[in-house]
């Protein structure tokens, strides 16, 4: 058998010039790809540089002290005052509020999504989350300003008490059941059944009375302005939900089935498995999710600009969510329209100083969450 005649044999060895040409081509091509890649990724340095370049003149002109410690914000006054502490405080307050709304909701939803719901239902729920994430921030802002703010202003008491009922009812009923059970365990065996009933009923009645009193108290409240920290916190919380849900769900999924099966095999219920093994194992991922949610809330502009009331003062008392506040992003967006004409003045540069603070904060947060994620990945061996 003779091998069949093949097409003219290609030489395996490249001659020197082809080789050089080929290598040059590959070098140029890779160089091009690399430069486009680095150009698009190094944009972040451009951003840092240009924000910093316009931020430093402010600190040079006005120093740091007033900016960070005073609450007097009159950039257009004579003399101008640049005390941004109330604005920093407003940002913090609104963010805290958003976290209070989104973290418990987001984590329970993530747990439910990863461990409770069957696969088919999950396929329906996921688009809901994606749509929540997709709605433009200005639409949320519009809702907050045009629908939610008047509602709070006109029927504030009812809204607050309904909210309190909605939040507290499940939590309190859980608490009543657990406490009732724990108390009943202290009674002797024979009485235990009766004792359980009595304990649970008493506790339930107590909780119900508390709730009623709280509800009455809340529904008497009148809200002076619907555009306030509470409004913004709720809307921002909803906006941060998708981030928190999807990132922490990924973290929960990453722990793997073996861990869960190990726990189930020892006779743990689903709740115990999740609370005692799955969540501790994925804690760092959940933390990263929370950080990302915080970043989303801090960086959001339109909602806070439209619906926070934009009053640059610290509420009385400081935790009063029903008063208007002002945030960094809203200040930048709102004041730049006027400061634009006076490029070079402290009024112009102070906004860049604020942007610089935002940028630095988000950069640090990002590094923290990245390192948390990386470390947890290493720990899980993935």
């Amino acid at each position, binding site marked *: 058998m003779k091998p069949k005649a093949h097409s003219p044999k290609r030489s395996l060895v490249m001659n020197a010039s082809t080789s050089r040409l080929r290598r040059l081509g590959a070098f140029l*091509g890779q160089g091009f*790809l*690399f430069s*486009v*890649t*680095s150009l698009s*990724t190094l*944009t*972040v340095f*451009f*951003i840092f540089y*240009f*924000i910093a370049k*316009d931020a430093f003149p402010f600190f040079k002109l006005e120093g740091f002290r007033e900016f960070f410690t005073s609450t007097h914000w009159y950039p257009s006054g004579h003399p101008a005052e640049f005390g941004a502490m109330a604005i920093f405080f407003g940002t913090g307050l609104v963010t805290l509020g958003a976290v209070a709304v989104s973290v418990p909701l987001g984590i*329970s*939803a993530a747990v*439910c*999504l990863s461990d*409770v719901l069957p696969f088919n239902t999950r396929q329906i*729920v996921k688009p*809901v989350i*994606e*749509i*929540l994430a*997709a*709605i*433009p*921030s*200005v*639409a949320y802002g519009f*809702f907050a300003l*045009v629908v939610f703010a008047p509602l709070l202003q006109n029927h504030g008491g009812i809204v607050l008490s309904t909210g309190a009922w909605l939040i507290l009812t499940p939590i309190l*009923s*859980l608490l009543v*059941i*657990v406490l009732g*059970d724990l108390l009943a365990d202290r009674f002797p065996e024979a009485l235990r059944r009766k004792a359980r009933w009595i304990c649970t009923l008493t506790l339930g009645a107590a909780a119900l009375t508390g709730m009623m009193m709280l509800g009455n108290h809340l529904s008497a409240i009148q809200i002076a302005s619907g555009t306030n920290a509470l409004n913004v916190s709720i809307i921002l919380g*909803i906006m941060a*939900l998708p981030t928190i849900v999807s990132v922490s769900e990924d973290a929960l999924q990453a722990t793997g089935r073996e861990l869960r099966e190990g726990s189930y095999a020892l006779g743990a*219920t689903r*709740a*115990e498995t999740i*609370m005692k093994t799955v969540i501790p194992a994925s804690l760092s991922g959940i933390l990263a999710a929370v950080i990302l949610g915080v*970043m989303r809330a801090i*960086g*959001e*502009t*339109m909602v806070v*600009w*439209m619906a926070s009331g934009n009053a640059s003062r610290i509420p009385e008392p400081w935790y009063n969510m029903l008063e208007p506040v002002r945030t960094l*992003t809203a200040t*930048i967006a709102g004041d*730049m329209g006027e400061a634009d004409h006076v490029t070079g003045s402290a009024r112009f540069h102070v*906004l*860049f100083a604020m*942007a610089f603070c*935002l*940028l630095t904060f988000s950069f640090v947060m*990002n590094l923290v969450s*990245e390192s948390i994620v990386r470390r947890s990945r290493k720990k899980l061996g993935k």
Partner: protein
Amino acid sequence: MRLETRRLLDRAFSSLGLIAIGVMALALVVILTPIIVRGSGAFIFRSTIEHRKVMFDQWDRGNAGRLETAKAEVAAARQPVYDMLAAFNTELDAMPRADRKPYKQSLRDLEKALAGLLGPVPGERTPVLIRQQYGATRWDRTQIKLDDVLTTEEWDYSDPTALGKLVRTPRVEQFRGTKLEPLFPYVEQNIKAMMQPRWTCYWQFLFDTSKDSHIFGGIGPEVLGTIYLTLGAMFFAIPMGVIAAIYLCEYAREGRVISFLRICISTLAGVPSIVFGLFGLAFFLNTIHISDSKSVLAGALTLSLLVLPTVIRASEEAILAVPRAYKEAAMSLGAGRWRTVMTVILPAALPGILTGVVISMGRAAGETAPIIFTAAVSVGRPLLPLEALSQPTPALSWNIYNLCTEHEAVDEIRHVQYGMVFTLVAVVLLLNVFAIIMRARISKKLRG
């Protein structure tokens, strides 16, 4: 703990999660419902004769003959009102000076309210502003204007501890015993004949320019501006993002440089959108002077930076999802790295990349903060493509903000605001639904 309690707790725990998901879905419904319901009201609503007049005068729409007949009918229905006013004026002239005085102010208020409902009195000089040339164009506005005619409103601050209360009193009280008294029941009963409400589908709302700062007309320039900005942003972001993804997945060797680049990308993804806006202002406009004023180009470039990380990540994921076997097959047939990428990997990754691109488009269309200082103006005409390089544009996202906070007649144009929000949300959601469906098909293909 007893087994029963543990089981109960377990169930409670599951239901807590379900409640959380329920709350999330509820939030979505609560937010979307008013936007959809009232937003569609900008397109489909009961229009009055005034709307038809606006359409005919300003946009040459509608049948002239039929409009004239309707106008005549309406004029006939309205004539008693003007007759009564004239009669009252003669009555007023006959009164002693001292009696006349209290009626003067009330009459002026009434005439103003009537002009808001019916438009200017026929035969009088046409007002300069278009908004004063017509009465209420929409039936829902007609109801409110009718209330203004029938009642006066006052704020009651008598209780210093509570907030002010709005009190409405019938206007007829001011004119008891005069010739104007029958005007109020007449207007109330004949409002339909005077306005001729009719269901209309004003689909041109999407394309019409606006007249007299959005009081009449549609949102054409805003829609066009949003399209320019979005397509412009994608024009820059897609090539950059896809090339970066190809490099990171296929060429780069994992090492310090690459992990550094990756940190840069994730940092870029975390930069607040308002900071992008400031950067666009400081760099594109104030430093390299890409255009003399704000412009679509500057806005599109700023937006493209904003969506770049999303495009890179989506493309990377799509490229990594291409089975390695394809790459090996192409290589074994003698394809170089570049040929493999172009002929095998990119085509296979294309649907995935497209999904990411479509989602980023939704993001770019909806973002406001980056374009405030770089591209957006409140009022403008539709731009030609070439003008986009140097001129600012109105855009949906910016004008939603602008119309509901800074417009002089916020309540008058609620329907326009809702229409804009509805349009923007619909566009973004359609893009996302498209992406979701496409992704489902891809995953089915990869599984099957």
